[in-house]
């Protein structure tokens, strides 16, 4: 079992969600986050004072899925979240040791 963590531009969330459900993913977790990468921040103006805002709003998506779906899901996320401009985000993949469905007590891939 693997977990895909993707940091994307907030306005791409809907497209990414649709792309993932189209390959059979049944659940995702979404968090609003802030951060910076190569895109860096932006400046804001208040009464003539310029503030540099380093952390930009992004959306973090977490999906746990079976091994065989990982490549396909990564492709789908890349296609859906890409604008070609700096700041499109990143995808991280990690291993998951155990999953439990709280209601039934099922474990492993059955519980995903």
């Amino acid at each position: 079992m693997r977990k895909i963590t993707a940091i994307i531009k907030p306005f791409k969330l809907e497209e990414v969600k649709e792309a993932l459900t189209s390959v059979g993913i049944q659940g995702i977790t979404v968090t609003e986050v802030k951060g910076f990468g190569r895109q860096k921040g932006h400046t804001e103006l208040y009464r003539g004072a310029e503030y540099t805002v380093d952390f930009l709003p992004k959306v973090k998506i977490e999906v746990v899925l079976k091994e065989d779906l990982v490549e396909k899901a990564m492709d789908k996320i890349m296609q859906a979240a890409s604008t070609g401009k700096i700041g499109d985000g990143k995808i991280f993949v990690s291993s998951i040791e155990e999953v439990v469905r709280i209601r039934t007590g099922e474990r492993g891939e059955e519980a995903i």
Partner: protein
Amino acid sequence: MTKFMVYLFIFSMGLLFNIDAAFAGEAEPKIVGADTAWMLASSALVMLMVPGLALFYGGMDRSKNVLSTLLLSFVCLGVITVQWTLFGYSLAFGSDVGKVIGDLSFLALAGVGLEPNGTIPHQLFMVFQMMFAILTPALISGALVGRMKFQTFVVFILLWSTLVYDPLCHWVWGGGWISDLGALDFAGGLVVHISSGVSALAACIILGKRKGFPAEPMPPHNLPITLLGAGMLWFGWFGFNAGSELAADAVAASAFVVTQIAAGAAVLGWVFTEWSHRGKPTLLGAASGGVAGLVAITPAAGFVGPISAIMIGALAGGLCYLAVLAKHKFGYDDSLDVFAVHGIGGTIGAICTGLFATAAIGGTDGLFFGNPGQLVTQLISVAAAWVYSFTVTFVILKVLEATMGLRVSEEDEVQGLDLSSHGERGYTM
């Protein structure tokens, strides 16, 4: 023969007018219903400026201090209402003592009844003036947000209102030496805006900077409520300026019209100055410009015409924006720019009154209408208001610093005053 008839006619008309005037002079003062209705409404309009100011300021501060900032304005409705009732009104409008202060004849509103004062009940005049006395210390609070002890602030506004506002109000409106001088201040350029703005400068210098200023960004946390507050201020300002005529008459209408025109021109003045300086027009700039224009037209309303109002407003919008930049240059933490908007805006307005006033509207000419002496009078009154406000505020705060302490602890400041001083939060999510 015909010539004789004309002379006779003119002579008799003159006699008639003289007799009329003599009767008017001797007539008992009478309450006029229209004036009373307008002043009741105006008093309520000025009251609404206090919560308007609270929202204007509250949105500009950080979210951890929003309630504390709102409260600094709102608490003036409590403290100054009682102060004014018990002795403030008497100090400002009691019988003159040496041209500097009112006596104690109106203590606890003794003798302030429903008899006519001009054409309105005396108590109505008192409560209209009360709203001004409440708003003025609330204006100062914008320079002190995010770090001042609440209990010290309460004592400060009580002392400030008694020692700065009441005497200054007496000098200008209560029959004191500035009114004798002939200085024009229709609705409070000196009494309200220079006094609060210059005092705010003195206060923020003594109080010191917020922790992290200016290195750490402290952007406004909720500009929509700032715009709501600016809108309430603008709305209430019609009562402030047009109400200062104390009657529902032509001068009140003129004051109303130039108030609107100057505020509109100042929105443009500020926005275009900021746009050309920083490359973008901003909402905060538009709201701030409107307020700066309202400040600047305050002393001039009732004395100037519409085109003069455009010039006063545009000038105030541009110059107040530049005055805000000064704090970054000199390093004082006038947190919400009270000095730049009210101190400088009020000064521009008081000086412009000496330039643009025209006898056709308010009975007195300024420099541009052939009376250079008025400008000199205005400059003297401005200098007096600056020096008096700055000095007395400085002394009050030095005494409070030594006795009560001015600032909350550093830990409380970092946590935010909403939680540390008041035990509540503006936003629970």
